[in-house]
Structures are given as structure tokens and as C-alpha cells.
């Protein structure tokens, strides 16, 4: 009994610092923003309470839904590319300890470069007049694939998603390597002795053991994509119109360019809500898988 109380007191004091900073400087501001979303506010004049007015505007706004679907596409592509490639490469490296450090360092380099730099660079790469992408395609004889990457409606969004999906693969490789290294070797060895081949070992022993890390990565990936801003903003300003904009970009434009902070805050609230839903769904799915 006394030990329980001592533990509780200990836990209280140990959690207190992180709780205080987190609540005061993250949660409370977010609640303020949620409050702004219920008002009509241009940042200068007084706030006018309009209840769900902003949300009604969003539902009726075609721009909002365009950015919504753009963001969804981004989530799906980054999930598919980053998690699967991350897992694959981490596994390949993990199996061959030789050169692991060098490879991992190299793979991590893009993660380290500021998105602004990546965005600028790709803007130049995509430029049909002076950029390499089209040159490269010509060089391998794929002229017909030449496009105006940032001006062609069909490929525009894909062109903006690509650098972002590519840039952070290295981060997941790193996380997964650490996760792989936490899988007890005995488990893998005993499976090998039992006659399981590579693929079976991978999918039936290793992946489940890494379950927690894969779950973390997926949540990180999805929430990161939902908040996405930099790449789209730098390369195209989210444009033309909102064709290459994500919810985060649309929120920024609304709040800081159009000076409508009420509506911008409402958009943020929808971003947070979406992230919440995704996370809960993901947890439910992995919970189901774990039970099997």
C-alpha cells in the first residue's frame, strides 16, 4: 500500500514537468485556436461569434475538398512508399552488417536537408526549360514522358508529392533498423532451425515483433502528411489555384494570406480531427492483427 502511494507520488513529480510544458504551450494554444474557429476574425478587428459558421463554409467550399483529397492522396502515397521501402531496405541492411553504418548515414542525408532546399532544388529539376528530369528522360529514350511537371494538371500533384515521399524514407529506415535490432535473435534463430525460409521468417516472426515500431511509423507518417506544408508551398505555392495544395497549405493561405484566422483555425481543427480518426483506426486495425 505504502509502496503504491510512494509510486504515485513519484510518478506525479516525474510527469509534472513534461505535462506542464505540454499543456501550457501546446494544448492550451490549440484550444485557443479551436475557439477562434468558432468566430469570424480577420486578425485585426474584434471577433464575432458565429458558431459553426466557418465549418459550414468549409463543407460548401470546393477548394476545401480539393485540398482534402490532395492530402489524402499524399497520405496514401507516403504511407505506401515510405513504410514499405523503409522496411525493405532496413531488412536488407540488417541482414548484411557490412556497410550498414555507411548506407544508413547516406540514406538519412535527405532527411537532414531542410524541405525548403529540397523544394527549391526540385523546382529547378522540374523546369522544362532548364531542368534535368526531361533531359534524363530524353537520354534514356523516354521522350514521350516529357512533361511540364509543375504546369501540367495531370502530373502536377504527383510531381509535388514525389520529393516529399522520397525525402523521408531514410528516417523510417533508421527507425526500422533500431526496431529490427530489438528483435530477440533467439526467436529468429529458432525459426530458422525449424526450417522457416527468409520470407516466412520476415513476415511471421520479425514483422510482428516490430509491430509497435511499425505502428509508430505509420502514425508518424500519416500525421506528418496531414500537416504537410513546406514542399507544396515552396514549389508551387499550392497552386495553380489549390491544385497542389494540402490542408496545411490551404490553412496557411486562408489565415495568413487572406487574413481569415477564424476560417484558418477551423481548417486546423479538421486536420487534427482527421489525424485523430486515422490514429484510432490504425490502432484498431493493429489491435485486431495483434489478437490473431
Amino acid at each position, binding site marked *: 500500500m505504502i509502496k503504491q502511494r510512494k509510486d504515485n507520488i*513519484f510518478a506525479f513529480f516525474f510527469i509534472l514537468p513534461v505535462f506542464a510544458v*505540454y499543456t*501550457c504551450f501546446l494544448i492550451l494554444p490549440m484550444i485557443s485556436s479551436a475557439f477562434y474557429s468558432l468566430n469570424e476574425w480577420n486578425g485585426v478587428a474584434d471577433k464575432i461569434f458565429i458558431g459553426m459558421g466557418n465549418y459550414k463554409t468549409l463543407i460548401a467550399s470546393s477548394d476545401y475538398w480539393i485540398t482534402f483529397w490532395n492530402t489524402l492522396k499524399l497520405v496514401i502515397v507516403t504511407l505506401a512508399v515510405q513504410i514499405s*521501402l523503409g522496411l525493405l531496405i532496413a531488412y*536488407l541492411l540488417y541482414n548484411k552488417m557490412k556497410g550498414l553504418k555507411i548506407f544508413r548515414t547516406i540514406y538519412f542525408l535527405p532527411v537532414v536537408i531542410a524541405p*525548403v532546399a529540397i523544394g527549391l532544388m526540385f523546382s529547378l529539376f522540374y523546369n522544362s526549360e532548364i531542368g534535368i528530369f526531361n533531359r534524363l528522360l530524353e537520354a534514356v529514350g523516354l521522350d514521350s514522358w516529357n512533361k511540364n511537371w509543375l504546369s501540367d494538371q495531370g502530373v502536377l500533384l504527383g510531381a509535388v508529392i514525389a520529393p516529399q515521399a522520397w525525402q523521408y524514407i531514410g528516417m523510417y529506415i533508421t527507425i526500422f533498423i533500431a526496431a529490427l535490432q530489438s528483435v530477440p535473435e533467439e526467436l529468429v534463430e529458432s525459426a530458422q532451425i525449424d526450417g522457416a525460409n527468409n520470407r516466412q521468417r520476415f513476415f511471421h516472426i520479425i514483422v510482428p515483433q516490430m509491430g509497435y*515500431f511499425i505502428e509508430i511509423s505509420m502514425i508518424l507518417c500519416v500525421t506528418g502528411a496531414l*500537416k504537410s506544408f513546406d514542399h507544396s508551398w515552396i514549389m508551387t505555392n499550392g497552386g495553380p489555384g489549390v491544385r497542389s495544395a494540402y490542408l496545411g497549405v490551404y490553412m496557411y493561405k486562408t489565415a495568413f494570406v487572406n487574413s481569415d484566422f477564424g476560417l484558418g483555425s477551423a481548417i486546423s481543427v479538421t486536420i487534427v480531427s482527421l489525424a485523430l480518426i486515422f490514429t484510432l483506426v490504425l490502432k484498431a486495425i493493429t489491435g485486431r492483427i495483434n489478437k490473431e
Partner: protein
Amino acid sequence: MSNMYLVKQKTAKCIKYIFLIGFALTSLYPFIWVLITSLKDNNDIYGNGFGLPKVYKWNNYIEAWKNAQVGISFFNSLTICLLALAALILITCMGSYAMMRVRKSKIITAYFSLGIMIPIHILLIPIVILFGKLHLTDNHLSLVIAYIAINISISLFILNGFFAAIPTEIDEAAIIDGCGRCGIFFKIMLPLVKPGIATVATLAFLNCWNDLVVGLVLISTPVKRTLSMSISVMKGAYVTQYGILCAGFVISIVPVVIMYLLFQKQIISGMTAGAVKG
């Protein structure tokens, strides 16, 4: 029979290496491109985007360091990020240990994971108002606190996994041995989650180092700027002097790479010391 198997093994290995090296090249290339571009002038960049510089403009680095006060902002960023990092790691490890091993609570864990979903831009106005009330305008301390707050969720997210993975026997053994909770934390737990700390440190440092908007709204005086702010300023009103800009990028990448390499050693030594074993 065994010969064929060997050949199959070898080709499989070959393919794997080709794939790995290919991906490594695509990862490296942007870095190389930024490096080469940092030594060109504008005309060279537009005319000859992917070749070697016609004229090596080492001057770009001097310009970047001097003109946009990259030097000062470099040290600003370094101080702020390291401070935030140190405090962040300390309080999140404490919190994670407490909520994962001392007094487990799903509610608390869930509460802390909310932060991951919050887009930074929407916090801008409230935190400016908040720090204004605290009389911390144009003050590095506000940045430190903001950076800590922003990274708490991700850090806890990752650390929780590592703390949870430690078998309970270790706690119990230590308690039997007469070690207080505090002692357990500092002497046993922390070393065990070194890879977790390394991961968190890397991610959090990156977030702080590359942040632009938060610094933008909290800091006004040019000499107090962070590095990414200085680089953004260098982008100029209407024209991008890519060469100098890239030089600034290279300068801003170097410390991160160094930090990463340093922590890499931590991860490896932590692992090979048999840290996380049953």
C-alpha cells in the same frame, strides 16, 4: 545441387547490393547538387544546372556567412537547439518512465499523443500572444520552450515503446536490491533506452534546426535570428541568389550531419553492449 544454390545466393546478393547502392545514389545526389550549386553564380546555375561550376565561387560562402549574418544565427540555432534538446530529453524520459513503468495510464499516454496531430501554423498566433503576456517577446527562451513543447509528443511516442520493452524483472530486481525509483531511473533505465534517446535526439534536433515559422513569429531582431530564418531572408525579395542560398544550406546541414554521426556511435555501442536483451 549446392553449386546452383551458391550461384543463386550470389546473384541475390548482387541484386540486393545494386538496389541498395542505387538508392544510396539517389539519396546522395541532392546533397551533391546543393554542394556544387553553392559554388556557382546565378547564370551558371540556370545555364549549366547539373555540371561542375565554370568558376568556383568560394566567395558565396563568405557572403552567406557575413551578409545574412549566417555566422551569428548559426550559433543562435546551435544554442537554442541544444538547450531545447537537453531539457526535452530529460523531461520526456522522466515522464515516459513514470507513465510506462511506475504508474501506467492509457489516458495519460493518449493525452500526450495528441500533439503529433497539431499543425504548427495554427499555434502561431496563440503562442505569440502567450509569450507576449509572459514578457518573453523577441527572446530566445520563448523559442526554447516552444521547441520543447512541439517535440514532446513525438519524443514520448518513441520513448514509450523503448521503455515498455524493458522486462519488468529488471525493475523488481533493482527494487529488491534496495534501489530507489530515482536510482533505477538514472542508473538502469536511461542506459537501457539509449537507442530511443538517440532517435528522439536526432528527430527533435532536426525539427528545431529546420524550423522556420515559429522562429519567424517569435523573434524580431536580426541578430537573434535562427539559421533557417537567415537563409529565408537570403532568399531576397524577388530574386533567388541560388548560389549563396545553397552555401547557406550547406552551412546549415553540416552540424546536423555531425550530430547524427556522433549519435550513430551511441546507437551502435548501446546495441553491441547487449543493452536490449531478454
